[in-house]
């Protein structure tokens, strides 16, 4: 809450001015919105794909346990490594576009430099990295469903879809809760991916997230007062979002 700058060691208390500045600030609203979009895409896509793949790999067998490890591998890699791989493939002169050009595509899109793609490319790379985690959590949830339940349902003449709706999906409520909260917290603090993939671009904040904006404002622009106000807002948003989600999902679990 001070108007401190590195070049001016004297500080004065400015009350809530920094917060007022922020709320009017186009750039910060932009990065808040970017963070929300990334979070929604990551939570939805990772849950849907994670569940689909978990259902596919549910069977026992050596092939399936090998495939489980394959999906889990990106989880143990650092976000920096995953992002550099992503950048090598998706950059303007990257491996994907050079392949497209050799296949005769004239002007391949700038996956990371065109505002209409960049945010989705970043989200996609995050989904790819987090997918293995969601798969493992769903598999653990599936393993906890008593076999008798599903057998009883199929004896009663339930088709596969009815079985899924009536038994599998409700029984997976705890797994959904864990995945959603974990994915929300992870996507809300996304920094490394932005630093490597786009450095906040295209433009000044095409893909800047709140975390990226905080660090940029504090350390590159040397405006610690404003950055602290951003961090304050970020903390409140994270707290409200995760507690609300947790409450909603746990109520759903209790209703089963």
């Amino acid at each position, binding site marked *: 809450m001070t108007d401190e700058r590195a070049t001016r060691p004297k500080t004065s208390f400015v009350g809530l001015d920094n917060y007022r500045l922020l709320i009017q600030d186009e750039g910060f609203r932009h990065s808040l919105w970017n963070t929300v979009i990334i979070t929604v895409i990551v939570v939805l896509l990772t849950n849907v794909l994670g569940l689909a793949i978990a259902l596919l790999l549910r069977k026992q067998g050596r092939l399936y346990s090998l495939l489980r490890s394959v999906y889990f591998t990106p989880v143990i890699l650092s976000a920096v*490594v995953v992002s550099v791989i992503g950048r*090598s493939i998706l950059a303007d002169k990257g491996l994907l576009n050079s392949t497209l050009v050799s296949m005769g595509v004239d002007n391949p899109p700038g996956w990371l430099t065109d505002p209409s793609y960049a945010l989705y490319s970043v989200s996609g790379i995050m989904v790819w990295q987090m997918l293995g985690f969601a798969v493992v959590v769903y598999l653990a949830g599936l393993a906890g469903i008593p076999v008798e339940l599903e057998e009883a349902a199929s004896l009663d003449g339930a088709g596969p879809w009815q079985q899924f709706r009536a038994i599998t999906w409700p029984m997976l409520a705890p797994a959904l809760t864990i995945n959603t909260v974990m994915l929300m917290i992870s996507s809300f603090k996304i920094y490394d991916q932005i630093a490597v993939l786009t450095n906040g671009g295209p433009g000044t904040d095409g893909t800047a997230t709140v*975390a990226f904006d905080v660090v940029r404002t504090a*350390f590159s622009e040397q405006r610690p007062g404003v950055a602290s106000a951003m961090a304050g807002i970020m*903390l409140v948003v994270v707290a409200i979002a995760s507690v609300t989600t947790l409450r909603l999902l746990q109520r759903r679990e209790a209703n089963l």
Partner: protein
Amino acid sequence: MKTRIPWLRPLFATGVAGVFCLPLYVALVNVFKPSADVVASPLALPAPPTLENLQQVLTRPDGLYWYGLVNSLMLTAASILITTVLAAMAAYRLVRSGRWWSRAVIAVMLTGLMIPPAVIILPVTRILDAVGLMHTMPGAVLVNVGYYLPFAMLVFMGFVRSIPRELEEAAAVDGAGLFRTFWQVVFPLLRPASASVLIFLGVWVWNDFLTPLLVLGPGAGNTVTVGIFRSIGPYQQDFGAVFAFMLLATLPVLVLYLAFQKHFVRGLTGGATKG
């Protein structure tokens, strides 16, 4: 679910996993190709394979890889050992004492679980500056210990509750003090939890980017993860060299993962999946 065609499911599952694997395959296979070949045909197998990229990384004149490796090893080892021991001790006392103030401490610790690093990085750097630990290894270790302590304590607290008190009472009857009871009775029983915590924190600290970037460098050099970031220029075209650097930087984690897969999966999703 009965599949009518028995080979359809494995085939489909393998196909999907194959597509998922493409980025990993590209990153791995191109380590062994000259960069010109990488751009020309990223999916082709190296013919003939070359070790030039790996050699180039290992013999860089600025020693980016070797310095980074030493820093990463030091930072990771110190951070996870200190955090594990402190968290185990704290969890043990907090669970066993059960007074109002320990419940308050537990509540504060649990709120620490949700805080994104970016939120606290600014005050943290201020404090480190004030005590003269900015851009030093001890400073970075301190930040990691503080940041990961809540998570480690959460894992240990669940475990301590499952240890029967009679063992501690027996130790007390035999005249063991508080510390001796902890070290000789409680800590050995916490071994499975310690394994989870060490694995989890090890992966996290090794892969961490923001904290070493801002807290450790530039004075003390930096970790391999920051090294990767430094090795990609704004117009990265030398794909082979970058992939080689990443492979070498990830090697310790990969080797451990392949050796202790089950522990990893259990550790990284641990506690979360116990209904």
